[in-house]
């Protein structure tokens, strides 16, 4: 599935949820499904800045694609991380580099990428793209 199609799928799923509170509840549940993040990778140098809570990200190359693992001690951020990785994980570096982050705005999550929001998602996407460079 292309990145655009993945975003569209998630958008349709979120659009069916009536209000922001319920949307965040679903996002928190998505975080519960996140691939476990090894404790030994909770290192300062793997922290993504720009978030009120701690957010770690590590990447590894698997054949032609990049596999990311990430987590946060805040459950909403962790859910947003799961959502981003559902869109961007296990893709080629070219796909990740060329991905237009403006597309994420279509998800309709209020303030998802706003710098002042301090949920760190903007920084996470930046770091994901940086690691694909």
């Amino acid at each position, binding site marked *: 599935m292309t990145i655009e199609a993945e975003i569209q799928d998630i958008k349709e799923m979120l659009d069916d949820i009536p209000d*922001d509170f319920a949307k965040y509840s679903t996002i*928190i549940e998505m975080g519960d499904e996140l691939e476990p993040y090894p404790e030994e990778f909770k290192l300062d140098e793997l922290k993504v800045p720009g978030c*009120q809570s701690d957010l770690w990200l590590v990447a590894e190359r698997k054949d032609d694609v990049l596999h990311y693992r990430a987590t946060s001690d*805040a*459950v909403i*951020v962790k859910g947003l991380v799961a959502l981003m990785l559902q869109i961007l994980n296990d893709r080629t570096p070219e796909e990740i580099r060329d991905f237009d982050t403006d597309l994420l705005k279509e998800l309709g999550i209020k303030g998802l990428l706003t710098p002042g929001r301090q*949920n760190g998602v903007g920084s996470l996407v930046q770091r994901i793209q940086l690691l694909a460079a």
Partner: protein
Amino acid sequence: MNKKCDFQILSDLNDDCVYLDSAATSLTPRCVTDKIGEYYNCYNANIHRGIHDWAERATGEYEGVRPIVKEFIGADQDKEIVFTSGTTHGINIVANCFCSDWTSKDTVILSEAEHHANIVPWQQLKARQGLRIEVIPLLPDGHLDFNRLSMAIQQVKGRCIVSMSILPNATGIMLDYQQVSQMSRDHGATVLFDGAQSVPRVKSDVSYCDFLVFSGHKIYGPTGVGILYAGDGLLDEMPPYMGGGDMIKSVRFERTTYNDMPWRYEAGTTNIAGVIGLGVALNWVENIGIENIYQHEKEISDYAQKQLNGLDRVSVLYPEAEKLGLVVFTVNEAQSVDVATLLNTQGVAVRSGYLCAEPILVSQVGRGVLRASFGIYTTQDDIDRLIDALNKVMAIL
């Protein structure tokens, strides 16, 4: 007392919003926003320069705010009132001008509860000039440890300034500023009080300090404007903080002569509309009566603390201490950023994180917190909305 009707932002458009972040920025009544609009729409000119009608009017309105501030804080003279960009600017002026030649023999004494604006300027001075910094801890009940303050002052050998917030933004517990003042002055120390949180809700009296700083945007005025009160003579001979237009009497390439107080600290074009708006805000507060505001916020703070203390998963910082204007708390087993995000979906705006006061919160809590803070427009219904929303949020966290 319900003053919501004075605030356009709290009118029908936003009647679902419960604003509990007034310690960061208070809302601005319509009379202030109207006055700012009037400046831009009717006499939008620079001050102290032109001789045309608009410039004359702008200058008159701007300078007319100085006596309003003087009366509001109980100062003696207009020239003791310096317009700044806010509390942070005011503290930086004192650190960089009054203490410009201080060295390792001299000391600044801070409380553990200070916010970053009353820590970093002194650290910068220390890095440049070797100034000593003494930090006085709080007692377990959240009040200042006066025994430690007494010891610290007695050990001072050179010059000393005691710089403390009267109402710390991370505790909401009033400092016994009269005792701090007496103890400091008995030993010849200079006293700087940060009134950012106290001036909007407690009667100010500058006879207890040498410097007082506060911000317009926390006292129902505009952002980007504030006040430095400097007692007569304290800053008159000091080198100004910034050079530029309006802070000079004459400029030649060989030599510049600085202006008198207070203009020598108001370089360049200042926030004219902001100053004019601040004057209206202070008159508005004066008309309500600072004692009435204090009483209202005391009741709201007591009520909020009682309600929060009644929630099993909520831990209030210094739960037994009397609070004014704000209550800081955490939700057990939940990150403050998650709670604040979910409260926002319920129309409740609170602050989360370290409140620009990392040292006290790192030592006392060890993680980010939530802060509900109040203004003259806050009602018990707002607090009930917060509690209802918190219960709903905690059910999924």
